[in-house]
């Protein structure tokens, strides 16, 4: 991306002729259209993350629309060549946090600190050690129970789990999106995954 044309042409010193101005406008319109196109191409992926960050489909739809409205208005603040998907998700999580996460099912209790093997151990005692090696064993957990378990973990942990495990963001991208240090992402992610497994164990296995 070139430097803004107003700097290159030094508008204050010599007023651009109508042709130069027209070229500048056309070039900006092209940049803008390209940004919009690239952002829209990511909408499905943005929605997928949004859907798991909030409680309902309607909220997710609203949030994604607000995100794109804001993104299209402030497209100039995106640096071309950087990660647009992460930039969009940052806009989205900020909007989500601004909303105060009002309508979410948010348990105020902290999850118990179970160990990482907690769910595997439960499965092993219910179905046997060998079951752990089969791909089918996880399918004993219904998709609904996974969605519900994700919705029930504390929002800060959920943000980290959703961004990394569903959105496929790196720790570094997630840290930027959430505006927290990378170590915070890692600890929220670990605790979130444990909380998720604990919920799954309770829901699916009783």
């Amino acid at each position: 991306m070139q430097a803004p044309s107003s700097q290159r042409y030094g508008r204050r010193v010599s007023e651009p002729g109508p042709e130069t101005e027209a070229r500048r406008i056309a070039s900006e319109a092209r940049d803008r259209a390209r940004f919009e196109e690239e952002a829209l191409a990511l909408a499905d992926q943005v929605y997928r993350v949004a859907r798991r960050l909030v409680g309902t489909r309607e909220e997710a739809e609203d949030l994604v629309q607000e995100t794109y409205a804001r993104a299209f208005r402030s497209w100039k603040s995106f640096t071309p060549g950087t990660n647009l998907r992460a930039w969009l998700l940052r806009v989205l999580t900020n909007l989500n946090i601004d909303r105060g996460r009002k309508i979410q099912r948010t348990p105020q209790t902290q999850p118990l600190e179970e160990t990482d093997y907690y769910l595997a151990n439960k499965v092993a005692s219910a179905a046997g050690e060998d079951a752990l090696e089969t791909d089918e064993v996880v399918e004993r957990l219904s998709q609904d129970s996974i969605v519900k378990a994700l919705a029930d973990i504390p929002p800060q942990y959920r943000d980290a789990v959703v961004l990394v495990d569903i959105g496929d963001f790196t720790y570094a991208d997630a840290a930027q999106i959430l505006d927290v240090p990378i170590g915070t992402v890692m600890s929220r992610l670990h605790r979130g995954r444990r909380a998720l497994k604990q919920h799954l164990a309770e829901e699916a296995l009783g």
Partner: protein
Amino acid sequence: MSGDPCDRCEELIQDFLDRTLTDVEWREAEVHLSGCDYCARRYKFEESLRRYVRTSAAERMPPGLMDKLSELRGLDATA
């Protein structure tokens, strides 16, 4: 690291799946997993679970949303 090697492996396994271990830790986990059925099975389980969570939680965009987003193009910065 002192203590039970399986506890240690349990500690490393998420980062192992995330591929964020240091070379030394990676080797440590790999050596343990190759000789310990208990942890190897749990590793397999965690790996399947990750995949299953990702696919189960994925939900496609509702029809119509894309059109709504497309209509937002050209929004004025001052609007």
